[in-house]
């Protein structure tokens, strides 16, 4: 039936999502990171739209449109503009070297799948098998936030985490209520702009976007 066909596409997109998460973990350049983030958003939007079409959950169309508009177009465009203004398109120095990070990432993925197994058995959705992937991408994004010391990659990690959560919601319960999704989308938008303003202030204060310098702010 068409349902299994759609499901296979969704599974493919989920795999893509995970692959992009790993790619983000290994990406050294900020521009590359933003491109990857945009691609991740695109995969997410597509999979949401397919789920909407195949299950008839119409509110998911709005979610997909929101994701597309916000995470594929608006936020990447804003970040590209930011790095041009701030002139920070250099290599990002990760705190732990990349092979080690990848290994930790693999452990996290195994952990996430193990974790998702009992939960996905309880879920009644057609997309439940992708729950493990969703959790894995949340944890991988978190790992990226930990291993990067520059401000922009951290924000991208934060947004990627939000992508993972969104995906988890779609796969476990066909998405959150529309009101919640709208609220989250607004939050993301505001957070990105506020952080954009912060970038300027951080650079003005420390002459660098490296968050190592923030250590000076601690209470003695």
């Amino acid at each position: 039936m068409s349902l299994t066909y759609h499901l296979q596409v969704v599974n493919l997109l989920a795999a893509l999502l995970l692959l992009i998460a790993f790619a983000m973990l290994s990406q050294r350049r900020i521009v590359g990171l933003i491109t990857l983030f945009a691609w991740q958003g695109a995969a997410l939007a597509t999979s949401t739209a397919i789920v909407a079409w195949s299950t008839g959950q119409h509110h998911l169309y709005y979610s997909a449109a929101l994701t597309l508009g916000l995470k594929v177009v608006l936020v990447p465009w804003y970040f590209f503009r930011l790095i041009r203004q701030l002139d920070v398109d250099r290599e990002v120095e990760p705190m732990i070297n990349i092979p080690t990070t990848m290994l930790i990432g693999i452990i996290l993925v195994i952990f996430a799948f193990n974790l998702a197994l009992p939960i996905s058995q309880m879920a009644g959705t057609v997309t439940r098998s992708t729950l493990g992937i969703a959790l894995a991408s949340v944890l991988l994004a978190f790992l990226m936030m930990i291993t990067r010391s520059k401000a922009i990659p951290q924000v991208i990690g934060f947004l990627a985490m939000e992508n993972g959560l969104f995906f988890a919601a779609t796969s476990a319960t066909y998405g959150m209520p529309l009101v919640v999704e709208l609220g989250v989308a607004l939050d993301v938008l505001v957070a990105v702009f506020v952080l954009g303003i912060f970038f300027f202030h951080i650079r003005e204060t420390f002459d660098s976007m490296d968050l190592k310098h923030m250590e000076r702010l601690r209470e003695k």
Partner: protein
Amino acid sequence: MPETTLLDWAWAVVLYWLGLAAASLALQTQAGLTRWVVFPLGILGAAAMAVLGALALASPPTQFILPIGLPELPFHLRLDALSGFFLILLGVASSGVGIYAIGYFRHMAAGPLAVLSLWYHLFLAGMALVLLADDAYAFMVAWELMALASYFLVTTDHKIPDIRRAGFLYLLIAHVGAVALLLAFGVLHGSDPARMAAYSFDAMRENTLNPAWASVTFLLALFGFGAKAGLVPLHVWLPEAHPAAPSPVSALMSGVMLKTAIYGLLRVSLDLIGAPPAWWGTVALSLGLVTALYGVIFAAVQSDMKRLLAWSSIENIGFIIAAFGLTLIFHADGKGALAALTLTALLYHALNHALFKSLLFVGTGSVLHATGERRMGRLGGLIRFMPWTAWLMLLGALAIAGLPPLNGFVSEWLLLQAFLLTPGLTQPYLNMAIPVAAAVVVLAAALAAYVMVKFYGVIFLGQPRDPELNEAHEAGWPERLSMLGLAAGCVVLGLVPSQMIGWLNPVVEALLQQTLPNDGNWLMVAPLSAQRASYAPLVFLAVVSAITLLVFFGVKYVYHGRVRRAAPWDCGYPELDARMQDSAEGFGQPIRLIFSAFMRVERITPDPFDRQPQYRGDSRDKVWLWLYQPIAAAAAWLSAQASRLQHGRIQWYLIYSFATLIFLLVFVTR
């Protein structure tokens, strides 16, 4: 349309005070309006509260549910005889203090005055609500309102670091006490804890706890209310906060706020828990006696006048708590009449203390205004410059020292009667301990008189120790009016004890189901029976006045009439000057030597050959050194360990949350 009850009126007064608090915020630039309109209106409310309380003594309890509060637990209010009595206390003392405040704050700028007026009226409303609350939630809200408002009043001069420190200490202990109260109410709830209504006092009254939990509740309540009242070892905030606060605020805190703790203790142990065993009484009695003795000894060695009064408040609270303990002992032992006698003494003393301590605190405020000096070592001879203040304070000092025919004597006499009339209690150990307790009470009372001789003598008598004192001015008329009223209260309460005891009877009866059998008549008070002991203050006053006048005129006209005045040999004092007088430290020195075990004395004594000799003596509280400092050090050490977590690196913080997340996820899947 239901009939308006006394409680409705009392609630209206609370709302009225809240309205005044809001109005004072609107008058940020109008100091005159705040002083001459807002404060007098507040006094009207206080007077109305006193009248309502007096009417409530004779009326049956009234209840009232407000449409505010938690969804399942709206605010319950209740006005019964016990609340009524404490409302009288609140109304009378705050009327007197309010009049004083009009004059005292005359030099304050409009902005700070508006803030002070806001907290002042919130404080009054909070205290009234504590007395009216009839469920745990409303009580705690009112209790916290009272604590916070008084905190902001204490820190009125918050620009001075010492005052901020005192305020913090007060707030800290108030909150530790409030937590204990919260736990006490948590244990005390009604039989159906799933429903919020189990936390109304009615449900608590109906529910009977098993003895172990009842005891836990009592001890928690004793701790919580003791922290507010200043029970040793939770007394440390009193000697810090009272000197820091403006005088009218000290007067209200010492005179009224400490009594709300006594109210709470009575309410919880006799009304809500019910059927207290005798050992609770023993605990309260011992703590009360220790507090009384500790307070009076430290009062004797103080040289700052407000600090001295704060320690004296601790002593009086100890006295009240001891009476409370004795009430519980007698009540548990089935000696209803004696329990009624001690409870009457307790209530009487609470009211007395509200009057004379307010009087003394506002009096020190006038001295402070006139001289700018709190250290007794710089004062002296003020009776010549401030006769009104001095003579009215003399009444207060005599009252607190427990001299007849003033009010302090009546309550102490009643309590001592209870000690002396004690027939065999059923517990032999208690029977043996009661005379010792009586001795401690007498010792504390005698030392209190000593403290007052020191307080009054050093400040008002002798010669001025500082030439600047010659410019000291008398207090303004609002201050004088206020002191006059409070002093009149002390005299009246001392002269008509029989009537007062009659008014207190409904309160005693409501709590103990027993009234004090008074054998006396309008002239004479004779608790229990006229054969044992009786006291007629009016007769006493007449006799004492007659003898005094007789001696005075006899000496003046008969003895002095035939004596020739001439310069004698001066008896070795050719030139007396102010430095030869006994100083505050000197006066306290014997006490410091006798009771040196209680305190750590830090002294710097000068070398005999020192050209510029310096002397400094300081008596430190051992409870502070042995109990509070180790706790503070432990808290500081723990926070230092916890602050190691703080690296300032975002990555580390992320790792913390990441580790927590992983841990929780593992925990979920288990």
